[in-house]
């Protein structure tokens, strides 16, 4: 293990960032400080790479199943895919009562993709970063959902959809009315607007930050457990047991978080479609 404990942790929490270096040239940041100095116009190459890669895994597997799909006796892959599709379809139908062909595929994509990204958390924390270091890549965060950029990007995309469908279903005026005339009588419109506005803004924030927070905390605990491996035989054993226990527990968390993200997306979009009478 190179450097101090703090450096070790810091290393694990730094993204591989591509952007404009302080000297004006473009390249990968050599440290967390350098990455921070790049400002908004930089990109977390590792997060994006893993996210796209895992998204492609999802797209490829499901496309393969969809292509070979037969109404006859299904094979192994088709069974698994069908199970997920049916699960998402049932969930969507129970929450979302309107007609919209986007919602169910959106929920499926979110559920499977977020699950796959979360799943990377179960890969022992040092394997891939160490390997990357050996081939000359300084930083490598393999769990995209521990990067707030990734989770917030998805949450904001859902937010855009919420606004879009709200205006589409209720009209611009109707949407404004909903924000202003509720929950108090119309005379208190400004207060209503502030309250409803906060509620609205809270949706993408809670959606993105919940996923980020859970996964970030989980990753942090894996890193802290990994620290124990270098502290003697007893700690090594204890750490091994802890890692196993936390990993088992984490299987639940990553599935649950993926499911929560998908279900809340459906719920928010269902609310956007509901034309309420006041």
């Amino acid at each position: 293990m190179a450097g101090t404990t703090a450096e070790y942790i810091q290393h694990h929490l730094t993204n591989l960032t591509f952007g404009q270096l302080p000297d004006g040239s473009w390249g990968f940041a050599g440290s967390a400080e350098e990455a921070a100095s790049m400002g908004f116009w930089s990109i977390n190459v590792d997060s994006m790479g893993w996210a796209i890669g895992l998204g492609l895994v999802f797209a490829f597997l499901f496309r393969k199943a969809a292509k070979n799909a037969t109404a006859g006796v299904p094979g192994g892959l088709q069974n698994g895919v069908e199970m997920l599709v049916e699960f998402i379809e049932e969930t969507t139908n129970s929450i979302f009562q309107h007609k919209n062909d986007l919602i169910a595929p959106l929920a499926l994509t979110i559920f499977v993709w977020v699950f796959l990204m979360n799943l990377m958390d179960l890969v022992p924390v040092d394997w891939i970063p160490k390997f990357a270091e050996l081939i000359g890549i300084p930083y490598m965060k393999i769990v995209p959902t521990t990067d707030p950029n990734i989770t917030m990007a998805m949450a904001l995309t859902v937010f855009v959809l919420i606004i879009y469908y709200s205006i589409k279903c209720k009209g611009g005026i109707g949407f404004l009315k909903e924000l202003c005339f509720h929950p108090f009588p119309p005379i208190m419109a400004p207060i209503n607007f502030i309250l409803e506005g906060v509620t609205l803004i809270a949706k993408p924030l809670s959606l993105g930050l919940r996923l980020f927070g859970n996964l970030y905390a989980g990753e942090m605990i894996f890193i802290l457990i990994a620290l124990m491996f270098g502290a003697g035989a007893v700690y090594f054993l204890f750490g091994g047991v802890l890692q196993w226990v936390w990993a088992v527990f984490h299987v639940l968390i990553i599935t649950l978080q993926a499911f929560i993200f998908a279900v809340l997306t459906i719920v928010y979009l269902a609310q956007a479609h509901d034309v309420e009478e006041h």
Partner: protein
Amino acid sequence: MNITATLIGQSLTFVVFVWFCMKYIWPPLVTMMRERQEAIAAGLRASEEADKKLADAASGAEAELAKAKDEAAAIIEQARNRANQMVEEAKDDARQEGERLIEAARAEIDQEMNRAKEALRAQVSSLVISGAEQVLEGSVDASKHEDMLNRLAAEL
């Protein structure tokens, strides 16, 4: 941990994957699953129908069998009656025929007997006459004793 253009990149990626899923993954899978549901439902319906048909056929066959049994029993009964009747008739015929034969035989026997009696009577009367003639050589006047001879012949 900084908010960067990754946000934009991930948003675009997200949109692309959702679009792909909506266009190429969801519809074929759901369509196929509906088809399978239909096929299974149709299969179940068909098997139910077949079951019903089978039950119908079984009860029909049972009824047919019972009918056939009844018919057979009736035919056997009829045949037995007819056989009994025939036997009775044959017996009657045989009895009548026997009686007739016996009657005929008896009549023939009577006839035969009478004929024999006649013949014997004639022979005896001639024997008696010749015997008496020999015994009474010349003394017997045929005309004188004709009465007695005739009585004798009648007695024989």
